[in-house]
C-alpha cells in the first residue's frame, strides 16, 4: 500500500471556482511534477471548507495548515517552501478565525512525523541548554534588550494586545495579571515561575526547562522589569532534578554575563533569581500553596482574596506565572502582538503544547496552534490508534481536566470552545483511551489521586475525596448499591462548592463526567455485576 507523506486539499466550491480555484489546482499539478513530488504528495479537491472569507483555500495535512486566499501565482512558493523544505509560509496563512469544526474531516492516515508550529519549544533539542552562547545565537536575550529600552507599561501593553492567556490551567489573561502587579505600590515585589508541574500526564514544562532554561530566565527578568520586582523564584517540583540543575547553571551564566544582578545591561534595573525545590506535593502547584511552600511551611492553599497579586510571598505583591506562559513572552516581545495573533484562534491566540498519551501509536509532546481538534491530534500527531483499537474517551488536562467521550472529539481545542462545551483544557495532557478502558476504573484511579494529594486543610475535600474513593472502589468490587450514584452526585456538588481550592473543586469532575457520559457502564457494575470493558474484577 502506498502512503503519501502530505495531502493537499484545494477548495472547489462554486465560490472558490469563481475566484480561480481551477487555476490553483492545475498549478499544483504542474508544480508538484516540477519538484518531482507527485509520488509523495496527494492532491485532492474538497467542497465546502466551512468558511468563506479566504477562498480559494488550500489546506495541507498533516500539519492542517490553512492557506488562503491562494492564487495560482502563490502555488510554486507553497510547494517549494512547505512541501519540499518543510517550512510553513506564514504570510499566506488564512486569516485566523474560529474553526467551525468542519476542518476536522480528515481521514486517518500514516506517515512522517508531522510538522508543528513551535514557539515555546522552538529551541528545544536545537541548542545546548547548558551553554548561554547557544541561546544568545538563537535570538536569546534580544527581547530583554528590547524590553529594557521600552517603558514597562509599553511592554505590558504588548502582552495584553497579544491575547496571551495563562497556560497553567486557568487561562487567565497574562498581560492583565502583570498590570495588576505593576499597579500595586510596594517597595518589595516578587516574580515567581510556577514549575511545580504535577498534573498527571503533563511534562511540557519539564521539556522547556530542560531544553531551553534561559528562555524562562529571560521572561522572568522582563516580568520583573515590568512589574517592579527585584527578586524572583522558580519553584521546581522536587522530582525534576535535571531541570533544577540546568536552571542553576543558566542562572550562574546569566550572572556572569551581567544579565542578572545589579544594573542589568546598564539599565539601572536590578534583579536576582533563585531556584526553589518542591518536595513532592501536587497541591503546591496551586499558587498560594506554592508560596506557603517557599516560606518553608506545609503547602496548604491560603484563603483568597487577597490574591498573590496584592499579597503574595512574605505578604508582598507577587506575580505567579506558569513555565509555558513565560516561555511565550520573549517571542511576543520580539515579534509583536500581531505576529502572535496570527496563530491560534481570535479568542485563544498562539500555540499550545500537548502531551499525547495512552493508546496511540505515537506518544509525546507537540506544540500546535490553538484550535485544532482532538480528532486531528489522535489521527495526525498520535498517528492513529493501534490496530484493533477504537477511540472510547480522552482525559484532557490531567486529573483536574475533563473526560471527553468520542462524540466531542471535533470540538476545537481552545479556551473558549472548550469552555462552551463544558470541558477543560487544563494543562494540555491528552490521555487517549480505547475500548479496553473502563470508565469506572479510570474514575477510581483519578479519585485515588485526589485523595492521596488532598492537603487535608479543608473538610469538603479531605472527607469528600476519601468517601468518593471508597464508594467508587466498592462499586468496582461489586458491592455497589443503586443509591450510590445519587450519593456520589451529591458529594461532587459539595466538593465543588465548598472546597477551599481548585484541588477539591476539580475532584468532583471525574464523578460528574463519568456519570454524565458513561452512566450505563457504571450501572452495569452495580445492577448486573459485570464490567462491560472486562477490566474490573466485579465479583472478586
Amino acid at each position, binding site marked *: 500500500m502506498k502512503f503519501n507523506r502530505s495531502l493537499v486539499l484545494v477548495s472547489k466550491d462554486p465560490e472558490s471556482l469563481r475566484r480561480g480555484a481551477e487555476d490553483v489546482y492545475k498549478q499544483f499539478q504542474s508544480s508538484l511534477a516540477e519538484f518531482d513530488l507527485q509520488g509523495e504528495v496527494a492532491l485532492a479537491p474538497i467542497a465546502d471548507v466551512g468558511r468563506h472569507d479566504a477562498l480559494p483555500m488550500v489546506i495541507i495535512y498533516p500539519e492542517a495548515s490553512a492557506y488562503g486566499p491562494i492564487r495560482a501565482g502563490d502555488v510554486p512558493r507553497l510547494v517549494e517552501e512547505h512541501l519540499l523544505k518543510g517550512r510553513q509560509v506564514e504570510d499566506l496563512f488564512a486569516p485566523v478565525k474560529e474553526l467551525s469544526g468542519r476542518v476536522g474531516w480528515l481521514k486517518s492516515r500514516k506517515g512522517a512525523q508531522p510538522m508543528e508550529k513551535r514557539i515555546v519549544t522552538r529551541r528545544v533539542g536545537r541548542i545546548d541548554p547548558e551553554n548561554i552562547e547557544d541561546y544568545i545565537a538563537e535570538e536569546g536575550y534580544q527581547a530583554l534588550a528590547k524590553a529594557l529600552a521600552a517603558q514597562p507599561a509599553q511592554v505590558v501593553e504588548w502582552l495584553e494586545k497579544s491575547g496571551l492567556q495563562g497556560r497553567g490551567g486557568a487561562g487567565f489573561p497574562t498581560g492583565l495579571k502583570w498590570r495588576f502587579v505593576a499597579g500595586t505600590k510596594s517597595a518589595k515585589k516578587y516574580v515567581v515561575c510556577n514549575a511545580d*508541574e*504535577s*498534573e*498527571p*500526564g*503533563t*511534562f511540557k514544562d*519539564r521539556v522547556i526547562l530542560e531544553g531551553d532554561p534561559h528562555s524562562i530566565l529571560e521572561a522572568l527578568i522582563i516580568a520583573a522589569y515590568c512589574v517592579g520586582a527585584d527578586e524572583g523564584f522558580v519553584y521546581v*517540583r*522536587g*522530582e*525534576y532534578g535535571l531541570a533544577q540543575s540546568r536552571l542553576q547553571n543558566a542562572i550562574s551564566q546569566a550572572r556572569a554575563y551581567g544579565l542578572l544582578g545589579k544594573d542589568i545591561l546598564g539599565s539601572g534595573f536590578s534583579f536576582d533569581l533563585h531556584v*526553589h*525545590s*518542591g*518536595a*513532592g*506535593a*501536587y497541591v503546591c502547584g496551586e499558587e498560594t500553596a506554592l508560596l506557603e*511552600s*517557599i*516560606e*518553608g*511551611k*506545609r*503547602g496548604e492553599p491560603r484563603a483568597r482574596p487577597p490574591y498573590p497579586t496584592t499579597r503574595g510571598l512574605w505578604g508582598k505583591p507577587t506575580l505567579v506565572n506558569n513555565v509555558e506562559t513565560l516561555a511565550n513572552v520573549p517571542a511576543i516581545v520580539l515579534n509583536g502582538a500581531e505576529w502572535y495573533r496570527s496563530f491560534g484562534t481570535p479568542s485563544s491566540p498562539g500555540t499550545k503544547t500537548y*502531551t499525547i*498519551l*495512552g*493508546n496511540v501509536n505515537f*506518544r*509525546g*509532546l507537540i506544540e500546535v496552534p490553538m484550535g485544532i481538534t482532538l480528532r486531528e491530534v489522535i489521527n495526525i500527531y498520535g498517528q492513529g490508534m493501534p490496530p484493533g483499537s477504537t477511540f472510547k474517551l480522552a*482525559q484532557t488536562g*490531567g*486529573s483536574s481536566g475533563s473526560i471527553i467521550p468520542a462524540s466531542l472529539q471535533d470540538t476545537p481545542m481552545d479556551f473558549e470552545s472548550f469552555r462552551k462545551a463544558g470541558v477543560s483544557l487544563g494543562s494540555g*495532557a491528552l*490521555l487517549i*483511551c480505547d475500548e479496553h*478502558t473502563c470508565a469506572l*476504573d*479510570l474514575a477510581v*484511579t*483519578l479519585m*485515588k*489521586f485526589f485523595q*492521596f*494529594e488532598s*492537603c487535608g486543610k479543608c473538610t469538603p475535600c479531605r472527607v469528600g475525596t476519601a468517601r468518593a474513593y471508597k464508594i467508587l472502589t466498592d462499586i468496582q468490587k461489586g458491592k455497589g448499591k443503586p443509591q450510590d450514584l445519587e450519593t456520589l452526585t451529591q458529594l461532587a456538588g459539595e466538593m465543588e462548592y465548598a472546597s477551599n481550592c481548585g484541588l477539591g473543586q476539580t475532584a468532583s469532575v471525574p464523578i460528574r463526567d463519568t456519570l454524565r457520559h458513561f452512566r450505563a457502564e457504571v450501572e452495569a457494575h452495580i445492577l448486573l455485576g459485570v464490567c462491560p470493558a472486562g*477490566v474490573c474484577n466485579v465479583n472478586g
Partner: protein
Amino acid sequence: MNPTKDLTQIVQTAVERHGAQPDAFIPILLEINHEYGYIPAQAIRQARVLLHQPEEHVLVSEGQLYGVASFYHMLSVQAVGRHVVKFCESAPCHVQGGRELWRAVQQELGLQAGETDPQNRFTLKTVSCLGLCGVGPVMVVDDDVYGNVTPEQLPNIFARYE
C-alpha cells in the same frame, strides 16, 4: 540512602549549605532525607536547635518542622528499607499497562504499598505522576528510573539491588 552516616554531621552540613532562613527549611529537610534515607525525630530536634534564632526573628518549633516533614511525599519520617521502589499510580501509566504491572510488582516483592520487607531490603511506595508518561508505565528504584516496564522485566530489575 545510608543510615550509617553521622546524623549530626548531615544536619549541620545541610543547614550550612542552605542557610537558616525559613525558605531553606524544605531544602534542608530534603537533603537530610536524601543523605540519611529518612528524617528521624532526632534530626528534627537537631535541626530545630540550629534553625530557631529568636534574635534573627526566625521562630521555629519541632512541631512545625515535623509538620512539614510529614506533609511532603518526598520526605519520610519513617525508617525505610535499603532501597525504595516508587511506583507511578497516575492515570496515564495506569492505562498504558500500569494496572497489570502494579499487581506484578506487589507479587514479586511480596509487599503492599507502604510496606518494608523483614530483611529491610525494599520499601514499596506509590507516587503520583513523575512527568515521564511518554515511557509509561514508570517505576523508580532509589534514583534509577525504569520506563516501559513489563512484568517480565521485574525479577531482573530488582536483582540489581542488594
